[in-house]
């Protein structure tokens, strides 16, 4: 026991207004899905939170038809300035219900309340505000004087940022005049269904947004449905490839935001303490369940020891535990399946000879937790340097020269994000031009803004979300 033990400071779970049962949201109403209901868990306690009705293939058809009707009869005809009003209303409702959404997100996902409260929910609202502003200005976005929407967008989102990914998908789709059929992840459907309530509160015309909980097969039904004009998917590269095969040869427009194995490159002239912060934020934010996580630290050999020493000290101050506690830095891994995957890759790191260091923080007996782990002496040939772990595990590699840093950073089939830490401005620009990554952060990491386009190269996918560029994915251009 230390002398300054922070007393538990849990956010009240009552704020989440958790219900026993949730239903799919189709054509403006919550309906009984004809799929097998699923039970969603609190990954921090393994207790069942709620039963959620799921969709079947026929429900997908119903939802797509509703979306088509809403598109043809209402939404595509509505002037942008009117659509904007709905988006502004949704944004304000997200803000009004932000505490409820944050607590619910934390219960369902396992992420710390400080992140759902200070990052996920405010950024989700910001996406709606930002895109509301575009709705009546599409003619000035650089896609011609009167760019047209695509129609019905089928959207499939992951479990790592359930509400935020929903906002990334729905806000631009609605702003550009499309209607939506969205499937939240199997393990995190709750905030998406509360978003359905928000659509009702905002009096959004029926059918503009449809939300269908379910497993991968429902995602596949949406992707395969012939009346869907556009597919947007965020998730694993494996599923992304399946989707691409399915839509090949169809008229469907596709954007994919997939995995990553980002390099966070630290030069010897970096602001070291802030670089350490950036490394920590890069890999331990959201338990490392971030597609753009800085999971490979490339540090210049001359400062490797110093950086590792500072990093271990800093990581040992991270507080792991109850995600609802306001002082928790690292919450629960989202599912037993994901925890097993992380463990498997960590074992491969041990077997392949990397040096494992694990934070001495206490780990709760119940729930899916994994203590922050740093592997040093990692080489390019090891699995932990090549495969996406999607957990709080950092692989540390070294380099000698800037050229070597570029070579190693680019030596991955992925290309979603990268970080550069140096006080030399010219080197930042030189590096950024050569890094094959959709997002390059300089002297920071994991910063998101609705105005900044986000997306990847190669196996990290294609298409951009956010900013003016992100509008293109939902316009006929």
């Amino acid at each position: 026991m230390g002398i300054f033990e922070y007393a538990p400071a849990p956010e009240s779970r009552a704020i989440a207004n958790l219900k026993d049962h949730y239903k799919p949201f189709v054509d403006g109403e919550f309906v009984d899905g004809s799929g097998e209901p699923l039970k969603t868990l609190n990954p921090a306690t393994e207790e069942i939170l709620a039963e959620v009705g799921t969709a079947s293939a026929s429900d997908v058809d119903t939802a797509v038809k509703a979306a088509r009707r809403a598109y043809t009869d209402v939404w595509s005809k509505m002037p942008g300035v009117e659509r904007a009003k709905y988006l502004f209303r949704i944004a304000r409702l997200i803000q009004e219900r932000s505490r409820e959404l944050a607590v619910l997100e934390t219960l369902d996902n396992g992420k710390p309340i400080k992140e759902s409260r200070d990052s996920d929910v405010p950024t989700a609202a910001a996406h709606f505000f930002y895109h509301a502003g575009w709705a009546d200005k599409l003619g000035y976005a650089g896609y011609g004087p009167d760019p047209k929407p695509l129609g019905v967008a089928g959207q499939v989102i992951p479990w790592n940022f359930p509400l935020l990914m929903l906002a990334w998908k729905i806000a631009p789709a609605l702003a550009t005049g499309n209607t939506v059929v969205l499937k939240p992840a199997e393990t995190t459907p709750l905030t998406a269904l509360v978003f359905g309530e928000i659509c009702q509160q905002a009096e959004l015309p029926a059918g503009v947004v449809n939300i269908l909980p379910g497993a991968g097969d429902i995602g596949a039904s949406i992707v395969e449905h012939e009346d869907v004009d556009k597919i947007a998917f965020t998730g694993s590269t494996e599923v992304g490839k399946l989707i691409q095969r399915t839509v090949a040869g169809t008229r469907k427009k596709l954007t994919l935001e997939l995995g990553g194995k980002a390099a966070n490159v630290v030069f010897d002239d970096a602001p070291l303490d802030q670089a350490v912060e950036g490394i920590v934020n890069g890999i331990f934010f959201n338990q490392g369940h971030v597609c753009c996580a800085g999971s490979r630290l490339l540090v210049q050999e001359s400062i490797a020891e110093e950086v590792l020493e500072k990093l271990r000290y800093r990581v040992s101050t991270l507080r792991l535990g109850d995600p609802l506690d306001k002082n928790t830095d690292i919450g629960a891994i989202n599912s037993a399946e994901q925890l097993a995957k992380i463990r498997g890759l960590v074992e491969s790191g041990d077997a392949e000879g990397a040096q494992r260091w694990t934070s001495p923080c206490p780990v709760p007996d119940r729930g899916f937790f994994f203590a922050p782990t740093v592997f040093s002496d990692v080489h390019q040939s090891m699995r932990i340097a090549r495969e996406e772990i999607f957990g709080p595990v950092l692989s540390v590699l070294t380099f000698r020269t800037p050229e070597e840093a570029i070579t190693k950073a680019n030596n991955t089939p992925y290309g979603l994000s990268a970080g550069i830490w140096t006080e030399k401005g010219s080197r930042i620009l030189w590096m950024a031009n050569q890094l094959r990554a959709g997002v390059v952060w300089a002297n920071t990491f994991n910063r998101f803004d609705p105005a900044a386009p986000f997306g990847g190269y190669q196996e990290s996918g294609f298409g951009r979300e956010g900013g003016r560029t992100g509008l293109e994915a939902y316009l006929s251009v």
Partner: protein
Amino acid sequence: MTATTSPSAAPDTPAPLADVTRDDASLRRFLHGLPGVDQVGVEQRAAGLGTRSIKKEAKRWAIDTAISMVDLTTLEGADTRGKVRALAAKALRPDPERQDCPRVAALCVYPDLVQTAVEALAGSAVHVASVATGFPSGRTSREVKLADTRLAVEAGAHEVDMVIDRGAFLEGRYMDVFEEIRAVKAACGETHLKVILETGELATYDNVRRASWLALLAGGDFIKTSTGKVSPAATLPVTHVMLQAVHDWFTRTGELRGVKPAGGIRTTKDAIKYLVAVHEVAGEQWLTPELFRFGASSLLNDLLLQRRTQVDGHYSGPDYVTVD
């Protein structure tokens, strides 16, 4: 003239760093070779840590610890012996109706009032701290600064809060600043030396880091943010940079040095944010009045009010604590 500037009277720089103060060029190379501080990053980190929620027992502990770390300060032209005696009485018994309330760490006054403070606090464990060296601007000759220091020490001060020569620092005359701190340290003898960097005039975090190391190299027992006469005074990110410096100093030399933010810390909420920073940036062993102080005057009363709230379970008003 008794004022000598011989640095040899001050303790030697610890062995691992002995070379860096060998000459002006080495010192300069060392200070400019320290890693930079990214403004956005350090401010983000400070704001992030500021969201820690300290409740119940942790809050009670933090309030009592903060009270015991206060350097109760009066540094006004209008200071009188009466005012100093009144503050001394408050320092000894911050909350007279609550015997279990800890006393403060020190009473901080101008040199000419040290004697009054020493008499008023005689036999207690509350220290007397004196500002010196031409406080607050430090714009006077070294002879005067050293004489100022000696007078404070001779009058019985346990701690001396000196100001660095910011002009010399900003001109890049680091060795002059270093030697002056050493000379003041020598004049202090056994008396504890706090080195005020006046971070509001140094302006950049890089400068704060360099000045912190300079003061640590020169033998300062504490590094202190501000005089309280310049705005901005203490800020959380500046204190982060200084806490990082004493942490790194400990890693390099094994020596524990202290940090004192001063000026602008008025509420319990703020004080707790600083304690969280001490805990998580420097480390748990800095959570003692030996190594962390608050330079403040109005902060104490807010701490006392919050202490009563914690103990009694309800708020009381400002009239329930003494004005000074």
